[in-house]
């Protein structure tokens, strides 16, 4: 009974992907011209290979998160995606952000997620359900969204200007404590509140009383 929906989703989704690929292939050279710092012609260096690998890791992890039936696998996929993103940060010469990504996400958020999974699913239960719903419509919408964003990404003539990759930790520290001082303090405040709130919400005795 779901077949037509699935069929519809697959067709539209694949149509979107085909469209995107077509667009990419058709508009490759201008896209390169637009985005590339260097001309398209050039040796395929290792850095490029690493980039693609990281990108693939990221996308794959995300796909695992999105599609895996087992939530534990989803968490692992999330780990991969986060790592990939950190790698991309490095490629984008945002080293501090990359480090922060690794520390906060993988060191904090991911751990939290895993804890949550464990707490909310009985230990020892074999399959940890990660059932999905509205698969077709969700897929459809996501595909359209993806197509759109890809079109935007490749069609818009971004005025790119080269910028050297220099260490950013110290400048970020100055920026946070000078230019962005107030948001920084607010962020710390938010974290405090979050801490307290999370504790209050999570403790069941209090709510029990």
């Amino acid at each position, binding site marked *: 009974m779901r077949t037509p929906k699935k069929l519809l989703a697959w067709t539209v989704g694949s149509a979107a992907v085909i469209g995107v690929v077509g667009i990419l292939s058709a508009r490759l050279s201008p896209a390169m011209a637009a985005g590339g710092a260097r001309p398209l012609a050039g040796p395929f260096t290792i850095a490029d290979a690493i980039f693609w690998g990281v990108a693939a890791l990221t996308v794959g992890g995300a796909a695992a998160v999105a599609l895996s039936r087992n939530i534990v696998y989803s968490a692992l996929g999330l780990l991969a995606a986060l790592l990939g993103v950190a790698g991309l940060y490095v490629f984008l010469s945002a080293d501090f952000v990359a480090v922060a990504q690794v520390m906060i996400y993988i060191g904090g958020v991911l751990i939290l997620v895993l804890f949550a*999974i464990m707490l909310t699913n009985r230990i020892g239960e074999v399959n940890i359900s990660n*059932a999905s719903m509205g698969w077709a419509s969700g897929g459809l919408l*996501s595909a359209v*969204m993806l197509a759109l964003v890809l079109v935007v990404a490749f069609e818009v003539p971004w005025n790119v200007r080269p910028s050297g990759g220099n260490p950013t930790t110290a400048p970020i520290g100055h920026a946070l404590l000078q230019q962005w001082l107030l948001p920084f303090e607010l962020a710390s405040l938010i974290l405090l509140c979050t801490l307290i709130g999370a504790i209050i*919400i999570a403790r069941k005795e209090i709510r029990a009383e």
Partner: protein
Amino acid sequence: MIPTLSHYLAVAAVLFTLGLFTVLTRRNAVAILMGVELMLNGANLNLVAFNKFVVGGLTGQTFALFVVVLAAAEAAVGLAIVLSIFHTFKTIDVRAADLMRE
């Protein structure tokens, strides 16, 4: 071939879309939170990429940092809520948590 801005944007787009897909399709609150994290990462990637290729300076990275911080906070609170939902409903299926509907 040299990765350009568009490639980063493409990756970010895929991240975002998959996160969206996750949020849309999952019934598991934790999975939904993961989807949110994916979308946030997609956005962060955009920020940093634009920072590198277009804007320059540090603004993008700083924003990325703030987003990371907020994401962490969000994750903490969200998961706490998930826990409390679980305590309440003995499940984390979001369909169960619709008391406020009526």
